[in-house]
Structures are given as C-alpha cells and as structure tokens.
C-alpha cells in the first residue's frame, strides 16, 4: 500500500488564527477479489474516527459473487491442507517479518483510536489461536467429529436407518469489526476452516488488516483454493446501492455481523428466508466481587489489579471490558464502607497503568459522563468519585448502577449485600462476568446465565479464553456451515 502525496495545506487567512489544520493525506485501500489484489482510486471515503480520507476501487458485482451453479474453490480441499496453509500463513503473520502487516500497522495507526503500542500488541495476538494444536482442538470441540467438514459422515439411527451428514461450506458475508485488528485475522481463519465462499466487508476504522492477511496468504500460495474463496471490499456501511444488490439469499446464506446500532439495524432490513444473520451482539461486561476481597490491604490491592485488568481492555472499548463492579459489602457499616472506598482508590490507581491492551492515559472522559459525575459529587456520601476526566481512570461508587454508560476507563462500583443481589445487575446485554474469589463462581453462574450472561470467568481473566469455548452463546463455526443430509431412510 502506498500513501498519496499530501494535498496542499489549507491557505491561512491573514489575521485569523488558528486556522483549519492541513488536509490529511489520502490513503489507498485495495480490494481483494477472489484472492486477487485490485487497486483503484474510483471512490473516496472518510474513516469514522479521525476523518482521514481514503480511496478504493469501484466494486464489480459480477466478479465479487460466485453464482450458485458453481462450487466454491475450497469445497473439496481436505481440512488438513487448509490447516497446513493457515499454520504456514500464521507463521508469517509476525509483525517484525511481514511487510504487509507493517504497512497495515502504519496505516491503521493513522485511522485507529488505539495508540500504536497497543496496535502492535493486537497484531501479535492471533498467533496463539492459529497453531495446529489450537485449530484441531477447536474443531473437535465445535464439531465433535470434524470429518463432517471434509465429506459425508455416515451414521445409523436406532431404527437402523442410515444417513450421511455434511457440514457443507456456506456462502458468507462478514461484517468485520473495526475495534481490533486481530478480529480480521481470526475471521479469515474461521472462514477458511468452514471452506466458505467469503466476502469480507472492510470496516472504516481498519480497512487494511484483512487485506494484509490475504496478501500474506497470497505470498504463501497465490493459487490456494482457500485464498481464491476470499474477497475483501469496502463500501460505506448502509449504502443501499451496494447492499440491496449483494444481500440476497441467491448470493449468500449468512451474514456475520459484529456489534449493534445502525450497522446491525441496517443488515436486519435485508435478512429473511434464506439469508440469515449470525450476530455477535454488542455486549457489556461486569464483575462481581465477594467480601473476601476487602479482608486485608493486600487482597484489596491484588483484587483491584485484577478488576483494573478486566476494565481496561482496549481502553474499555471491548465487549468483555468490565464497566460495573458489584462488591459485597454493607454500606451502612462505616468500617466496611471505608474498606470499600480504599478498594475504589486502589482500583483507580491501577486504571492508570500501561498494559498490553490499555493505556495509562487513554481517551478523555466523554462529556455526558463528566456532567453526570459532576452532579454525583453533590450526593456524598451515597456517591463518591475517584480519579480524573483526562483518561487516566475514573471510579464512581454509587448505591445502584449509574444510568450512564461507563466508558473510557470509567468503572462504577456498587456495594451489594450478597453475590446473589449482584446478579440482578446482569441482563440480556451482559456477556462476561468476572468473579472474585473464583471459587464462588458456582454460587451464581446459574442465576447469571438465567439473566442472559454468556461467560463467567475468574476476575482478571476476561481477556484470557480457554481454547474451543463457545462465543456469544454459540459455537460460531457450527452456525456458519449449512448442515445437509444425504438420507437413506
């Protein structure tokens, strides 16, 4: 990828300062069409976060869509070959040795809200999921018998009737999420494992990483059927001229969507019989802390660190980042409240720390939170505030969950009489709940799942997942494929 020459700086009006900043450079974003890189400067767009313009080729629909009269290039490629290919690609997805990723990092740094150091770390992350062992383990956990991916696996029912089942490769549109480059890498690997025909819709916050991964795949083998099954293009989300053409059951089986709001509401207009949404919903996360945490200064320190680690993931712009923390404590007991406040102060300190995926000082607190918090300062001792609005971390203790959405390293601590009471704060939007001490997870996991929670973890481990686990209440690869039967009954 290259960067076009800077356009002339905006003329400064005499006597009027400061003036508008100079216009930023235009970034060139190539498309990938069935494995081939296509450059072009036909259409210009703005990235969402910083308004950096970028240019892309025009989309040619006929080239992009594989008609249903045609099998996908990878439909009959054995899984072992695909895993070999992915593992070899993964070995080359090392930032230090991969010029495409380096270029992507430079470009992503210009349009992403994440600081460069964190971007570098996210580029390193997918490696651990793309080893042979990790992939095979995951396929076994998801499909029990991964042979269904390679062909028609036969079995006989209790009546003696024989049938053959195949997890048939689907036709997928992937709406890539823009809040982490590793998402692009894992989405491409998922698409490869189910042998799908894929169109990746590039996100404006990161239109580069998916293309960088596909180019790396082309270096390993430009004719590999998996690569020839993949296209990656950008259009402005919601552009009916593109979506009204593409989003049809005749062209795709499923659309994989991350997040919510306008992006998902817009897709829903097009879904219907034969064209289904597999949604990774927009989620919030929380933590529940037992009174054991307040037993001593030492445990308070340790638990504050665990809570801060969960709350600060991607500077809290991630589904699994904790926002509300319920702590078992009697707020009417002065001594207990004092301990809770000490915990809040320690938590605030630990929010202000550089981590692999967090900045000591991140984006500043948004004005709606500041306004609400300023009001709460009048409500001491029921409410109490620690920290600053400069992005270094803010802790708000309140008798019930605050009614603003805590973000940008803002943590809401709520005293609760019991862990059971804390489960009432979980709802259909809650994804991950970190619990301390971990042994008490069992006390509340059924209540949490009843409320809608999908994942209960040890406090401090929100970002660490066990391989092969379900995600957002499903086994995604199981949802992606089309389950087809060849029945002898």
């Amino acid at each position, binding site marked *: 990828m290259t960067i076009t020459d800077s356009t002339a700086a*905006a003329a400064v*009006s005499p006597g*009027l300062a*400061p*003036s*508008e900043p100079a216009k930023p450079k235009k970034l060139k974003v190539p498309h990938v069409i069935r494995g081939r890189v296509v450059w072009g400067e036909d259409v210009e767009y*703005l*990235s*969402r976060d910083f308004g950096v313009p970028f240019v892309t080729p025009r989309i040619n629909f006929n080239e992009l869509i594989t008609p249903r009269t045609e099998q996908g290039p990878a439909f009959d490629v054995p899984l072992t070959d695909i895993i070999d290919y992915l593992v070899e690609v993964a070995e080359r997805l090392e930032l230090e040795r991969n010029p495409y990723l380096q270029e992507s990092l430079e470009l992503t740094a210009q349009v992403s809200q994440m600081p460069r150091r964190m971007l570098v770390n996210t580029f390193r992350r997918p490696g651990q999921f793309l080893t042979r062992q990790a992939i095979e383990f995951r396929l076994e956990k998801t499909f029990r018998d991964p042979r269904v991916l390679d062909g028609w696996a036969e079995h006989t029912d209790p009546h003696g009737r024989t049938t053959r089942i195949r997890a048939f490769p689907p036709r997928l549109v992937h*709406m*890539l*999420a*823009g*809040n982490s480059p590793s*998402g692009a890498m894992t989405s491409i690997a998922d698409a490869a494992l189910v042998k799908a025909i894929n169109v990746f819709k590039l*996100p*404006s*916050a990161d239109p580069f990483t998916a293309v960088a991964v596909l180019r790396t795949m082309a270096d390993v083998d430009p004719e590999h059927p998996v690569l020839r099954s993949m296209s990656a293009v950008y259009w*402005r*989300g*919601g552009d009916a001229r593109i979506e009204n053409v593409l989003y049809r059951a005749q062209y795709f089986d499923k659309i994989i*969507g*991350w*997040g*919510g*709001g*306008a*992006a*998902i509401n817009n897709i829903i207009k097009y879904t219907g019989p034969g064209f289904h949404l597999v949604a*990774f*919903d*927009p*989620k*919030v996360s929380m933590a529940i802390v037992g009174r054991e945490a307040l037993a001593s200064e030492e445990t308070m320190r340790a638990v504050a660190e665990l809570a801060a680690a969960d709350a600060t993931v*991607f500077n*809290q*712009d*991630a*589904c*699994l*980042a904790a926002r509300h923390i319920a702590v078992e404590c009697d707020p009417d007991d002065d001594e207990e409240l004092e301990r809770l406040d000490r915990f809040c102060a320690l938590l605030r300190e630990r929010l202000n720390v550089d981590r692999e995926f967090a900045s000591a000082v991140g984006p*500043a607190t*948004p*004005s709606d939170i500041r306004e*609400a918090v300023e009001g709460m300062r009048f409500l001491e001792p029921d409410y109490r505030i620690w920290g600053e609005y400069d992005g270094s971390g803010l802790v708000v203790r309140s008798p019930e969950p605050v*009614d*603003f*959405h805590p973000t940008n390293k803002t943590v809401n601590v709520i005293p609760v009489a019991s862990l059971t009471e804390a489960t009432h704060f979980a*709802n*259909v*939007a809650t994804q991950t709940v970190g619990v301390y001490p971990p042994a008490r997870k069992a006390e509340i996991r059924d209540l949490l799942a009843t*409320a*809608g929670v999908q994942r209960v973890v040890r406090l401090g481990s929100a970002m660490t997942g066990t391989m092969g686990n379900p995600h957002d209440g499903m086994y995604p690869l199981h949802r992606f494929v089309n389950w087809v039967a060849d029945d002898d009954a």
Partner: protein
Amino acid sequence: MFTIARLEEHGHLVSSSSGTSGKASFLDKTMTDREASGQNLLDSLTWLGMPPAREWHVVPVGPDSGISSAAYIRDVFLTNYRRDDALPLPESRPVTDHHKYMARLGAMRRAIADGTASPDEVAAFEAEGAARQADVEDRLQFLAEQVIAHRGENIFFNSMFPMLYRLNEILREKGVKPGDITGGNGLQVAGGLKGMTLPPDYRERIFELLNIQPSRFLHYYAMQEVNLRSVKCLEGRYHVPPGLTLFVLDKNGEELAPLSDGQVEGRAAFFDFSVDGRWGGTISGDQIIADFGTCACGREGPTVSEDITRYKDLPDGDKITCAGTMDAYVRGFIDN
C-alpha cells in the same frame, strides 16, 4: 408530579426533559424568564415584518401538552394575533400531564432495559401511546375541516414540521389541491424534525398547499435553556439577537472552535442575558456552522446556518465494535 405544581406556585417554573437513559433533568425558570420569552416572540415576529395585529385565524396544530410554559407562549400569541371571530380551536384537552408522562416514559425505558417490565405493562404502555396518537389524529381532522372552511382567509399556523406535514397530508386526502387555499397564511416553527423522517420535499409540499410565503414564515432556533430566539431571515440564516451571545465550541464543548474565513463549525453554546432563574450559560448538544460576517440579507451580527445537527444524531459511519450499550436491546420507548 405534585412537587412541580407546588414549585410553580412559588415562582419556580420548572421545565423538565427526559433523556433516553430514563434520567430526567430539570430547569428552574422564573416568571421573568417566561415574560422575556413571550416578549421575544412578539419582537421576533415584528423583526420579520409581522407586528402584533389581531387579524388572524390561529391554528395551533400540535396538541395541548399541558406544559404551563407552552400554554403561556400560546396565550401570548393568541392575545396579540388572533381575531375576535377566529375559527374555533379544538377543545383544550391535555393528553396527559407532560412531566408525569416523561417521567413514566423514562422509567418504562429503564424497566425494559433491566428486564423488570412485565409484558402487561409493555402492552398497556403501547395502548396508551396508540390512544395519544388517535387523539392527535382527531385533532388534525377537526383542524383540517376548519382550514377548508376558511380557505380564503388569513390563517397563522403554529406547529412543528412533522405534525404540520400530517395536516397537509390529511388536507390532500380530503381533496384539497395546491391553489385551493388562498389566504395569505403565516407559520411559526420551532426546531427541526425531532428525529422523524419526512420526504425530502416536505417543506415545499406544505408551503404550496397552505399558501405560506417565506416572508410570513417565522422559523427560529431556540432551546428550553434560552429565552431568546434566533430568527431565520429570508436568506435562510438564523440571526442571533442582541442579548444572546453565541459561542462556538469544539466537539467536546471545552475550547472555542477555530475560526476560518469568518466561519466556525462546532458545538453551539449561549449566554442569554435575559435569563433570570439561572446563570444564563448553556452548552448545547447541537453541531452548528456560524458566520460572524454580514449576512446576505444585509444584516450584521452572528448568524447560524440552517444545517443544525444534534451530535448524538450524527451518523457514526459504519462504526462496528463488539462493545455495546443497553440501547441496542430496547425496542421503542424513545422520547420525542
């Protein structure tokens, strides 16, 4: 909302609003504020070339909200512009107590988000909303008949655009065509579309049917927090009146936004010297483009372009992240 009535008895004319989070916010005003706002309405109409004259039929299109400040402004207008033999108004029947309704709406939204709202409560709330809508429709039908009966006489419409558009549709359904209504009609409109979607030519369709000329159209930019209206001139720019100081801040509302060629884009903030109940400063949620030169209409002083967008309504492009808020899980029950 007994308390709000008690506060009014003691000169604290509280106005309230409820955000989408379900949190209510309150604003303290005094009778001096209310009078300043009323006088400013007359000044604004005079500025536009329509000084008080009791020679109009008056059609307040929207229903009586039951808000005392709205009733006050409406009475100022009726007293100064409505002719003695004017067409009858629909029975004043506040659909509900506004403060109470907004508080319930907020509480309902929160209960749905929490998962504590029962299906019966949701059904009852939906039915109430439908009944409100039916009342509004009845009112518009009544007004449409009155407009037809007085189609050759001067009528002044007070409305928001979405409701006026609906009146225009009803008139057309009744067979009224452009040119049938011949009175030299006037219109005053505050605010934009409140998140509603209307056809792109909604304004033209309303104006041609109701025979409203731009010179008889009072369109102003204002908000609950200020008493003084910024009136739109024939060149389509809102003029910030004396007594109101405009500040254009950056997106976060922290610093003055940079000025370029006499223009500045950013978050509108005001200091209103006529405000009595509070200190007079307000930072709005609106993104505006202001000009500090001379307007094409010939008048000097700061003006605001008609392209005003609430920051929260700005498209976030195709922002996609796995992190969400509760909002995505609540269908319906948005205020406005």
